[in-house]
């Protein structure tokens, strides 16, 4: 008898047996359902976070360095406070010095940020994120314009009072009129709008990238605030040039900030890789916590299945005797009960998968989770495996039964 045929026959038998004990099977399956829901949700969360992170990171570019006062990777609030206290600000002057002295860069962009109230005539928008930068910003971040143009190099060098606004600022302040050429206010300063950015959406559903106003960095420093934190984005010619560029930046920065030779850096050279690394650590933690919880519920569920299968084997001792008497070999009986256990678990797995699918819709607004074929097959594979493993001992007992004793059983 072929394996496939044997399993097919066993599926019919198993289905009959499960139908005959619907309530009992359903109750036993609860543990497995919970386990599969956790496995699936964990998988979806990890995968969703991964996708969101990578797509957001891709915008940063792999061959770009970010020179700042504070590193991206901070393990605690205390650590952050310590950096704030002990490190000098990376200011407008230093940023420009650095930009001027670097020789290995393909491009670089200055950036600073602050929150100010923006107004147009009598309309006052809420506070917006005002970014002081240079003309290169358009290239290095890849923003697109819906209307008008970006800041020009001459405007940036001269610190002209001009701005490019995000789509949310545009729709908040300008009703039924084009913002281009209009004079609006940032804090108490008048600036002329030269361009409007295309809608960019939000970062992981949290804060809007469209509530922005871009002005020349020089204007930002001279008109808005003097003591603002800067960062310098430096693009290497290629990823291979990155280590040399990093060395050069480090050397120049130590001179600019007068760091004694024996002291460690009092600034940070950030890059995408460090975020990826710490993200990797976070997902490992989520993964192992999820693995522990789902492993525990699957273990409990599996013990329940084993128990119910022992009961099923005991109840059907006579049936096993009859089957053996008319020619069922050990393997056939073994497969029959393994299939039964696996079928209960598979049904539980499908229910769990359905529940997780429903939950993923509820979560979709806050987390970028979705059910992928990979996760669905993982859940199905896990549930079948739990069934086969926990059904093995009872099935083995059934397979080894002596037919005479089994037939004598009342």
């Amino acid at each position: 008898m072929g394996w496939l045929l044997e399993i097919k026959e066993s599926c019919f038998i198993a289905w009959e047996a499960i139908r005959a004990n619907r309530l009992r099977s359903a109750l036993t399956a609860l543990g497995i359902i919970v386990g599969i829901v956790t496995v699936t949700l964990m998988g979806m969360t990890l995968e969703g976070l991964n996708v969101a992170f990578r797509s957001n990171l891709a915008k940063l570019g792999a061959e770009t360095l970010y020179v700042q006062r504070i590193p991206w990777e901070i393990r605690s609030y205390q650590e952050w406070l310590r950096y704030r206290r002990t490190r000098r600000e990376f200011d407008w002057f230093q940023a420009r010095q650095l930009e001027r002295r670097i020789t290995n860069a393909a491009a670089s962009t200055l950036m600073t940020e602050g929150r100010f109230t923006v107004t147009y005539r009598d309309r006052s928008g809420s506070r917006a994120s005002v970014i002081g930068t240079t003309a290169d910003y358009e290239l290095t971040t890849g923003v697109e314009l819906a209307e008008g143009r970006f800041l020009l190099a001459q405007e940036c060098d001269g610190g002209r009072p001009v701005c490019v606004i995000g789509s949310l600022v545009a729709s908040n302040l300008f009703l039924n009129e084009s913002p281009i050429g209009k004079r609006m206010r940032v804090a108490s300063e008048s600036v002329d709008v030269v361009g409007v950015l295309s809608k960019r959406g939000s970062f992981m559903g949290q804060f809007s990238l469209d509530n922005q106003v871009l002005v020349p960095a020089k204007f930002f420093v001279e008109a808005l605030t003097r003591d603002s934190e800067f960062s310098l984005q430096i693009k290497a010619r290629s990823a291979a040039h990155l280590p040399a560029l990093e060395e050069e930046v480090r050397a120049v920065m130590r001179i600019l900030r007068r760091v004694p030779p024996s002291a460690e850096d009092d600034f940070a050279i950030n890059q995408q890789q460090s975020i990826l690394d710490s993200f990797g650590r976070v997902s490992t933690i989520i993964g192992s916590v999820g693995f522990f919880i789902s492993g525990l519920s699957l273990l409990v569920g599996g013990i329940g299945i084993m128990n119910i299968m022992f009961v099923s084997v005991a109840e059907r001792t006579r049936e096993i005797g009859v089957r053996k008497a008319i020619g069922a070999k050990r393997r056939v009986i073994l497969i029959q009960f393994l299939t039964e256990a696996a079928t209960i678990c598979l049904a539980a797995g499908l229910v769990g998968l359905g529940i997780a699918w429903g939950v993923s819709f509820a979560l979709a607004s806050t987390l970028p989770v979705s059910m992928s074929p990979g996760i669905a097959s993982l859940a199905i594979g896990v549930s079948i495996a739990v069934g086969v493993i926990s059904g093995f001992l009872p099935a083995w007992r059934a397979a080894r039964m002596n037919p005479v004793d089994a037939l004598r059983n009342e």
Partner: protein
Amino acid sequence: MPLISVENLSRRYLMGGETIHALRDVSLAIESGEYLAIMGPSGSGKSTLMNLLGCLDSPSSGRYELNGSRVSEMDDDQLAEIRNREIGFVFQTFNLLPRSTALQNVELPLVYSGMPAVARRQRAIEVLAQVGLAERMQHKPNELSGGQRQRVAIARALVTRPSIILADEPTGNLDSRTGDEIMSLFAELSVNGNTVILVTHEEEIARHTRRIIRIRDGLIASDQTNISPPPTPGAHTDTGQPMVP
């Protein structure tokens, strides 16, 4: 060569520290086509002998050859295969699978022998018709009378065309009229060339067969040709030879 050849077959059970000799040094030969009864009081070892002849159990000592194969030296799975191919069981309590229809019950031995689905369905329908249940094939056991259940069990025993039909008290759970119907079905099977072995404690039942082996305390007490079986149309005349134990 006889179909069944048994030499010095013994079966001992260990109960606590005590050895129970359920069967002691039994020797016998059964030819193909015989219709015989194994008789004896309760506890004499009839079922033990039937389990050995039916390859459900292995002897403690002795030799058993069935259709030329040395059954006494086989392992579990080989015995299962022999049972499937050579033996059809009919039990006192029918032993049908309660959740399966008559047809599914009869098909089951063919499932285990690996016959393709269409062929085995056809064969099962054929045998059910032969035992007079053509109209009841889709019924489950609890929708059938006792006599009908035993007919399903007989169809299940016949479906693989086994060398031997082994029936342990097949009328024990039936009223006498239904019992008679079942007995005439066995007679008919015998006439058609099947080897039929009945285990019973009722003289009335044993009277239908053409050879009666009586056992007592695990020994063969007598082995006789039945001189006056009730007349069956076209019955064979060459019955098995009486054997000296």
